């Protein structure tokens, strides 16, 4: 197996293998939480080879709430696949932009929910961030969105993620099979 280039758009023929040493840029150190996200900032998400259905990411690839992503301001796509033990080898990475995250979902009945990014740096992954939600009314009485609100959010996000968003192609399926 060949190693994929360090960055940039990559061929689907590559199978990415994590390097043994963690890139320096991933270490948080004394760096602060950066709460602001620009709409054009890239976000990186791991995916499996069977997560694309007819050229579009399946909602099965997204969880909610608190879907983890890496923010592009402080990371490269391959950082999502870094592991000393190589546990992410064979997975892929897609990118999307902050502006692609649906800002709001309003169900026919019940509360509308707003969605936003939160920078949640980890000691060994400074770029780690999460997608959060809150009720639009801002009453502080947060309730978990219903399954239909969550599904609509996940579908709308997946509508923005096609094969052009693949930064590192996955070779491993969600059940562990190697497909490349």
């Amino acid at each position, binding site marked *: 197996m060949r190693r994929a280039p360090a960055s940039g758009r990559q061929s689907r023929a590559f199978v990415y293998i994590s390097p043994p040493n963690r890139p320096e840029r991933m270490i948080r150190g004394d760096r602060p939480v950066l709460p602001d996200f620009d709409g054009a900032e890239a976000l990186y998400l*791991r995916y*499996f080879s*069977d*997560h694309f*259905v*007819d050229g*579009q990411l*399946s*909602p*099965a*690839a*997204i*969880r*909610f709430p608190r*879907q*983890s992503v890496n923010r592009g301001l402080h990371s490269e796509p391959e950082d999502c696949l870094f592991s000393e033990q190589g*546990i*992410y080898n064979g*997975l892929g990475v897609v990118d999307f932009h902050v502006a692609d995250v649906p800002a709001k979902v309003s169900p026919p009945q019940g509360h509308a929910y707003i969605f936003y990014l939160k920078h949640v740096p980890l000691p060994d992954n400074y770029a780690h961030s999460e997608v959060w939600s809150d009720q639009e009314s801002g009453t502080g009485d947060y309730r978990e969105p*219903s*399954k*239909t609100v*969550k*599904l*609509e959010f*996940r*579908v*709308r996000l997946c*509508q923005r993620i096609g094969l052009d968003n693949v930064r590192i192609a996955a070779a491993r399926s*969600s*059940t562990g099979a190697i497909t490349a």
Partner: protein
Amino acid sequence: MPMTVPPVDYSPAMAIYEQLGPGRESITSPYTALLGNTYAEICRSNFWTWRKQFEAAQRDVANLSALHPGWDSYDAEPPNELARRITRDILRILEQEAMPPSRLLPSREGGITISFAEGSRRAEIETYNSGEIAAAVYTPTNVVRVWELNAASASVREAIASIRVYLTA
């Protein structure tokens, strides 16, 4: 006094089972050609294609029991027995309705996603570990409808009918 009847060989001529290559002839070639064509037609038929797809889908659901917590490389729960049972029931109804899904996947949401795609039109039925079920129909740019259904056969059949109408419209 018992009657004895000479044994009758009901097995078909062996030549019928011969593998025929291009240009190969045998004394039973008219029958083998006929049977070969018929067999090929049967294999190509939607019924048998769907049958194989549904058998594979049922196997996929069974195999999902092998997933462990965090299977998705983040921290997703694997589909539990309830989600798998509901999915198996939905697959049986889909088979009766001759409507094979495009893909069946474990969901990071904790459950199983059954996906349908017909050109630019798409649909999902998701079963969750909580026992809840949700469905969505959408295009690449528009979410047409998202709704909740229950595990009762009538509710599932109604959702499948709605999805079929949407996908084939």
